[in-house]
């Protein structure tokens, strides 16, 4: 495979918040401009733009990609929107990567935006139509339901207790206290999670990330350009993505096989044979606390059913052996869908460059992994960066 080396050379993000005064395109502009400024580049230096954003219904704008284009810096440039539901943020980085790796472009600005506050009374109103209109919709399902069914299956298969899962919410919301863009940072306890409102057992209020407004952007460049721009490029060492059946009733809900396939693709590309030793910092997709555990297992970074123990023993703490969501994740920083996924890539970028401030994990990590998950709960996207 004659692919060129590609690096992330810059990143920027807006605050994640419940309701932004900015329009979606203004949010996209703010993140894009910050990303360019961070590596002293201008729009003239950008050859192509990759945009990621989730359902049009969130912003209340059809053809949201076109609406956001000028805020994403796409004026008179090759431009393309990708969309794989919740997986979009990490997939957008993969899209940026192949734009450059293919040799077609030397630089690509990758922008992800979401303005979920537009969607009233709640984005669940848009989510309801992702369910099969014939067999499921008459039951008035919402997303929390489907997660509750998956979470219960996961807990029961492995004999994991709710309190073991609640530790993830506690860890991530505390980590987010050190993130200047965080929406839901909090110093909470396992008891707080267990005492929070039951939405659909076993899912409780504090098990869930919020809906948010926000945008994130990164700049990707081919090797010869990246070396000119920075002496700290974060190389894309591997990418992977995979899709399971759209019939969620046919999947093994206790284990995300599609995440494993995506991870294996990325590990192979990166030449990683022992991920638990070779991945130093991880940002798995954590819209719900159990999903962090679920995904660590799918990423082969924990044995099946063992991720909760790693959390309890502090292995996944910011100063643990394998820091997980040192950013604060979506549970703590917030969850503007596509932007939250790209936030995970940018967090790995900052961690590897030693630029994560108070969130910096110790030990100068050399390799990190970002993962997102979405579509009809069956897509896994993985990006591995290394310095």
């Amino acid at each position: 495979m004659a692919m060129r080396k590609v690096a992330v050379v810059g990143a920027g993000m807006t605050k994640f918040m419940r309701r932004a005064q900015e329009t979606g395109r203004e949010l996209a502009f703010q993140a894009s401009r910050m990303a360019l400024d961070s590596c002293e580049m201008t729009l003239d230096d950008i050859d192509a733009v990759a945009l990621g954003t989730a359902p049009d219904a969130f912003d209340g704008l059809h053809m949201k990609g076109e609406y956001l284009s000028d805020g994403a810096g796409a004026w008179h440039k090759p431009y393309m929107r990708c969309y794989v539901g919740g997986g979009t943020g990490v997939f957008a980085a993969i899209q940026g990567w192949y734009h450059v790796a293919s040799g077609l472009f030397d630089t690509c600005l990758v922008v992800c935006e979401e303005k979920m506050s537009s969607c009233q009374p709640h984005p669940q109103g848009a989510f309801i139509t992702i369910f099969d209109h014939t067999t499921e919709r008459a039951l008035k399902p919402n997303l929390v339901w489907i997660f509750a069914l998956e979470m219960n299956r996961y807990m029961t298969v492995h004999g994991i207790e709710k309190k073991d899962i609640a530790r993830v919410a506690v860890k991530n919301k505390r980590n987010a206290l050190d993130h200047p863009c965080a929406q839901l940072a909090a110093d909470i306890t396992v008891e707080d999670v267990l005492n929070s409102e039951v939405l659909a057992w076993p899912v409780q209020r504090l098990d869930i990330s919020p809906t948010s407004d926000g945008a994130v952007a990164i700049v990707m460049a081919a090797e010869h350009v990246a070396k000119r721009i920075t002496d700290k490029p974060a190389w894309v060492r591997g990418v992977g993505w995979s899709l399971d059946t759209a019939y969620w009733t046919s999947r093994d809900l206790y284990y995300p096989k599609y995440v494993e396939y995506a991870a294996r693709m990325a590990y192979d590309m990166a030449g990683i044979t022992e991920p638990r030793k070779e991945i130093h910092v991880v940002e798995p997709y954590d819209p719900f606390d159990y999903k962090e555990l679920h995904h660590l297992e799918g990423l082969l970074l924990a044995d099946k059913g063992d991720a909760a123990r790693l959390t309890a023993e502090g292995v996944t703490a910011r100063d643990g052996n394998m820091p997980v969501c040192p950013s604060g994740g979506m549970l703590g920083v917030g969850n503007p869908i596509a932007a939250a996924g790209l936030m995970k890539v940018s967090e790995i970028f900052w961690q590897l460059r030693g630029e994560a401030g108070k969130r910096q994990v110790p030990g100068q990590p050399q390799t990190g992994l970002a993962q997102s998950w979405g579509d009809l709960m069956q897509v896994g996207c993985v990006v591995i960066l290394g310095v």
Partner: protein
Amino acid sequence: MSLVERITSFADAKVWYGNLPIESLYTVGIAGEKFFRAIKDRGVIMGSVCPSCNLTYLPPMMYCERCFAELEEWVEVGTKGTVYTYTVVGVSLGGAPLEQPEILALIKIEGAHGGLVHRLGEVKPEETEIGMPVEAVLKPKKDREGSILDIKHFKPA
């Protein structure tokens, strides 16, 4: 013959209605806030200026899409312009004939990049022409609420 073609009434097949049960709540944004406030409070139309690209954006933007500068400079562009193109709308969105045909125009304002799409008023369709000078007619101040409809229409100037 496709299945759809064979169904001649809803009774012939099991069908049902559904919808996307949401409403949208929009913010005017950083630039929009300034733009609409100027119309509402002072009855003036403003654009934002990119000095490097020598452009005055109308409607105003908070950034220049060409050079990505954040735009700090704002100017009044006046309320007079010319009809760049227009159409006479004969039917409603649902396809019903309109009692009173509506003239919709793209109005260009000298010195501004872009323009405003708005209704033309106080003029008959047969008197309307491209290149015609027009000016904005605003609602009385007490009725203005910070919306594009604070401009009632443009009329011949």
